[in-house]
């Protein structure tokens, strides 16, 4: 089997599973309980949070465990909007955000907020000037993703952060779900006020995630209840999930330190191979995240190609696993200015640190075969 759909989700690492299992079995108490079972669970949760804080070079109080990237993004976007609407009701985001940001913004528009959806250039990157020009005295939030999940473009987060810093009234949220563990993003002094991470994209477990909320940033919670997680996120904490998430964070940062160059080489190889297959267009810009390559094969239905590859035990995906208004067209590629032929026939190949050059070659070979077979059928 060759699994090249790591942007959709990743295989949990054995160490992560082991943490999950051990904590589930041994520390089952409710962290809010004041007896020893509760205290032990609470201590473990705090320790996990301190470790995560250390890995991210932030303070433990600045982290909130969530149920994943979608919740993190909703909590950030809606949370800032509701808490600061008295200061202004304008939000800036981009046209290529994940649906969990775009749809949250659309829901705010229905409540009377104004949202600017910034365009991107043909490399899938937001122009700094557009950001500057979009800011007005009503702007309370800029939400821009770090690495795009479909084409792998990397946004100029630090430059945007520097602009955001000039406006103390305004908060800056970054969806780092696809970037964490692959593209460095220092939070300290970055101008970033909120940052989302999801466990299952970094070989952690589904249903785990984390939101960084810079100290002194107030947000309105999505859920009301027992006031857990500093009242940012009510609900009995998923202690085993949180501990396993931090384990996954630690392991991927370790890989980022030791295996990033290899991954870049493998991805470059993949790109070179793909460029040589007839009928394949590479959409991912030259400057991109080290693990995502987006291609189009005009004239072919992406689902058909994916199924044919599945038959060969190779797994890739269309666009984002969970956005589909029009079944085939990618909103991200359209935003980058690609024509319909391209945006309706896109495929995404996404690597993890352990994919090998052999796997990449096999994939490319199988893809050409599949395309050939299909073209014969289509005649």
């Amino acid at each position, binding site marked *: 089997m060759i*699994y090249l*759909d790591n942007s*959709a*989700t990743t*295989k*949990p690492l054995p160490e992560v*599973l082991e943490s999950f*299992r051990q904590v*589930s*079995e041994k520390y*089952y*108490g*409710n962290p*809010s*309980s*004041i*007896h*020893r*079972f*509760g205290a032990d669970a609470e201590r473990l949760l705090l320790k996990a949070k301190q470790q995560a804080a250390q890995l991210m070079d932030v303070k433990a109080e600045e982290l909130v465990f969530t*149920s*994943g*990237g*979608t*919740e993190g*993004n*909703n909590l950030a976007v809606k949370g800032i909007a509701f808490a600061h609407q008295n200061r202004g009701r304008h939000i800036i985001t981009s046209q290529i955000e994940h*649906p*969990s940001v775009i*749809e*949250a913004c659309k*829901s705010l528009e229905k409540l009377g907020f104004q949202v600017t959806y910034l365009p991107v250039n043909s490399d899938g990157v937001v122009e700094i000037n557009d950001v500057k020009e979009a800011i007005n005295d009503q702007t309370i939030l800029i939400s821009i993703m770090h690495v795009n999940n479909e084409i792998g473009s990397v946004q100029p987060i630090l430059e945007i952060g520097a602009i955001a810093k000039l406006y103390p009234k305004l908060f800056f949220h970054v969806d780092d779900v696809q970037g964490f563990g692959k593209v460095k993003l220092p939070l300290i002094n970055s101008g970033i006020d909120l940052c989302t991470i999801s466990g*299952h994209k970094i070989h952690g*477990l*589904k*249903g785990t995630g984390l939101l960084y909320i810079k100290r002194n940033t107030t947000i309105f919670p*999505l*859920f*009301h*209840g*027992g*006031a*857990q997680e500093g009242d940012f996120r*009510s*609900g*009995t*904490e*998923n202690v*085993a*999930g949180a501990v396993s998430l931090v384990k996954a964070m630690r392991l991927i940062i370790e890989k980022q330190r030791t295996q990033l160059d290899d991954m870049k080489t493998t991805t470059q190889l993949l790109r070179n191979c793909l460029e040589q297959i007839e009928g394949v267009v590479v959409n991912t810009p030259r400057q991109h995240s080290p693990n995502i390559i987006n291609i189009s094969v005009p004239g072919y239905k992406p689902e058909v190609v994916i*199924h044919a*590859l*599945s038959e060969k035990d190779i*797994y*890739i*995906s*269309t666009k984002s*696993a*969970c*956005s589909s208004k029009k079944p085939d067209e990618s909103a991200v590629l359209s935003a980058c200015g690609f024509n319909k032929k391209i945006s309706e026939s896109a495929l995404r190949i996404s690597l993890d640190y352990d994919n090998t050059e052999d796997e990449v070659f096999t994939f490319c070979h199988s893809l050409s075969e599949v395309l050939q077979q299909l073209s014969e059928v289509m005649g």
Partner: protein
Amino acid sequence: MNPIYLDHAATTPIHPEVIQAMVPVFEEVYGNPSSVHHFGRKARQIIDEARRVIALSINANDKEITFTSGGTEADNIALIGTALANKSKGNHIITTKMEHHATLHAAEYLEKHGFSVSYLDVMENGQVDISQLVTVLTDETILVSIMTVNNETGVIQPIREIGEILKDHQAYFHTDAVQAYGMLELDVEALGVDLLTASSHKINGPKGVGFLFIKNSVKVESLQYGGQQERKRRPGTENVAGIRGFQAAVELVANDREQRLTLYQEYKTFFLQILEKEDVEFSINGDIKNTVASIINISFPGTNVEALLTNFDLSGIAASSGSACTAGSVEPSHVLSAMYGSSNQTTVNSIRFSFGLANTKENIEEAAKKVATIVKRLAIN
């Protein structure tokens, strides 16, 4: 000394078979259920199967089950999501003074946003006063939220009667069944319930999973936005293994609910017998005949919750003053205040003991004897 866990209403140990059911999902079916390839489809099948099992467990339709990250999220969708989606029909909501904070605080939020909320009184037997429900119900009422079993007293609420009262009224009926699910037979048709909350970690499943039953006819708004998951009611990549674990926990209870209940009832009776034999002065909060087998809430006159809990903990007994969720602080119980008035001493001298998987007849006996000793030592008469 092995500490004895008597706080299963706060959370339960995960059942070994639940973990066993989750592991293969983590290891082999790690696809994203939204992916169209084989891996994704396999993950989707697991969720579908869990949804079927869980729907069946409350006599609902598969489509009516929305998986969430827990009871709190489900209660928030039930309250806020339903209120916002139905505000054209009215702005009045009814709940009770004894609900869990997930419901109460969601209701308070709605009050700040133009809804009016009636909080029904609770009688000394621990049940909501239904006669009041009839008097406060108006044409403006869009939602009634009353828990199935109270988490502090274990008292079972007259859900079927409430369902009957609301049958011909526009108001939707939500019940927070977090403490009831797995303990009582719940048939949403027979009970006349439109929305129902349950949470996995209360029935030996993993933490971070729950569900909200939303009857087909009910309109709700989502609290979160994003992908198409859970029919858009709850977007976000599904916690596939967690959901599979929840299913396993549900199946385990379904297989031996009667035995469990009999056993927990025995523990409860045995526990109380020992207290009596040891001449401890105590009274039971709420009508014991009307409580779930696993929970008992006891008032120890002349004592104080904080001192009791500290001393229990020191001698290895984990119990609680009620909801675990009041994060560390031992505030007077809002449930007991609703039952007896806020100046009543029971609100500051009562302990909830809740039985479950971590208990045996032996450790119940040991715990009861220790409790008796501590109470007698601390009680000022």
